[in-house]
């Protein structure tokens, strides 16, 4: 079917409108990051770079950023290992209960974050565990497993089995076959899964709020607390803007390495 010129024009207009809807709040946010006034009223009153200096000098932001990188990194690593193991088991085998297991993996992202958060928190409390970086990592890893799992499963589904069979026929045992054939073929799927899992863990606020306890702040938790103090709002805008700009590189990278593997990766 070749779309009529009118249909193409309408589609183009609709797409432009949806895109502007997606970017309007981000654009306004960017403008406020340079706004002189602390009060976020429209139109802005003047131009300043003052808030960038404030953000750079703020030690709470730096430690929150470090915490975010550590927890999201650790959660991604755990999720990648567990998700890959699960994908290999479920894609390559037919067994009783297989369907329920894939259901179980989806559950942590499909259930509301507030439920996951309060469930984990009450369990940690019951076990007498101190809330901190470790409990944050456990919570984040739990809902990131499915991201790695989805990416690897999608890749394994498309991967022909013949190279692995050839490897086996040539005398390689299954470890060698995995290391030399399967793993290299999964590499880009692992990388895009890791990027998405990291982004998801980095931005998770609800589960993190419940599992972090009082003394631990990640970037979203810092934003959450700073938002309740109107004085800090311009600095929040700056942090948000800088994070968006820094995310261009990983998004571009994920696209380049064929991140279209799964639709959303979540």
């Amino acid at each position, binding site marked *: 079917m070749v779309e009529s010129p009118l249909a193409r024009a*309408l589609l183009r207009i609709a797409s432009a409108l949806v895109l502007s809807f*997606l970017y309007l*709040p981000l654009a306004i946010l960017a403008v406020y990051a340079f706004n002189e006034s602390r009060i976020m009223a429209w139109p802005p009153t003047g131009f300043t770079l003052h808030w960038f200096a404030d953000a750079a000098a703020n030690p709470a932001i730096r430690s929150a950023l470090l915490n975010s990188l550590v927890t999201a990194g650790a959660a991604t690593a755990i999720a990648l290992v567990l998700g890959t193991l*699960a994908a290999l088991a479920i894609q390559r085998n037919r067994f009783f209960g297989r369907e329920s297991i894939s259901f179980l993996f989806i559950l942590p992202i499909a259930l509301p974050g507030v439920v996951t958060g*309060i469930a984990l928190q*009450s369990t940690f409390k019951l076990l007498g565990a101190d809330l901190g970086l470790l409990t944050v990592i456990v919570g984040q890893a739990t809902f990131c497993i499915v991201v790695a799992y989805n990416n690897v499963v999608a890749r394994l589904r498309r991967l022909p089995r013949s190279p692995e069979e050839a490897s086996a026929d040539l005398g390689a045992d299954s470890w060698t076959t995995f290391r030399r054939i399967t793993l290299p073929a999964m590499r880009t799927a692992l990388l895009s899964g890791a990027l998405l899992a990291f982004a998801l863990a980095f931005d998770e*606020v609800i589960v993190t709020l419940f599992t972090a306890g009082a003394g631990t702040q990640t970037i979203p938790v810092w934003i959450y607390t700073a938002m309740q103090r109107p004085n800090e709002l311009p600095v929040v805008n700056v942090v948000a803007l800088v994070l968006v700009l820094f995310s261009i590189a990983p998004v571009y990278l994920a696209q380049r390495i064929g991140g279209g593997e799964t639709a959303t990766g979540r």
Partner: protein
Amino acid sequence: MDGEAPRGATPRGASLTVGPVSPARRVARWLATRPRTRLALLLSGPLGWLALVYLGSLFVLLLNAFWAKDAFTGKVTPFAWDLAAFGELLGNPVYRTIALRTIGIAAAVTVTDALLALPIAYYMARVASPRRRRALVIAVLMPLWAAYLVKAYAWRTILQGNGFLSWALSPLGIEGPGLDELQNAWIVLSYLWLPYMILPIYAGLERIPGSLLEASSDLGAGAATTFRRVIFPLLVPSLVAGSIFTFSLSLGDYIVPDLVADAKFIGNVIYDNSSLGNFPLAAGYSILPIAVMVCYLLVARRTGAFESL
């Protein structure tokens, strides 16, 4: 059947390789003839994690709902059983109102996102040049990486009395909506989760072979008929996959309703009660979104949506 067990491999023990055999290879060789053991080993890590950490926590949450809370001190005694929380939840009509409001908004957000996503996804998949298509995928993905809280807050500044919307509408003599309208939550949640709907629909449209659409038009179907009879049925799994996110993320949100709509959602009840120490009530109310989502997922799985996530 046997997973990656080598077909026609050398008999166990007879190695074609020369030199020392590493422990990893010895284990691999031992496992090669025992696919069940290998499957169990592969699954034990991820399944153990999810069963212990996740299902275990959900079970503790469920237990919480039945724990007794002292009426005077508000102290919750673990493992002392009581149905008071359920009495309150079922007896007070406000909890039913909140549940219906939340589910209604989540459904409205899902429909809105599907309607907004279809044209841009179609444009990306079938009209745009490959170069522009790549740029658009990145453009749709980017907002997902911007902090959720900040996007929600940006909407608060847009919608508030002296914000962007009032300013943009003022030449028309219309006032902005202010911050206590329920429809604000609908707009902002639709905004936040829109990329989660666009991407699976785009992926689904891209998978539809062009020959099918040509065949449909050769057989005399117009654009509308082709969409209704060919494209839409093939898109159902992608639409359902996207809807899992838009629906579940809206169902559980408590920050957006608080920031822009001054309304209580299911998540607010759970959050407020847990921070006030009324864990039994929070836990009891959590059963509702869990039940709704499990039913939703069971229906979604039948459409093959899990393969389109």
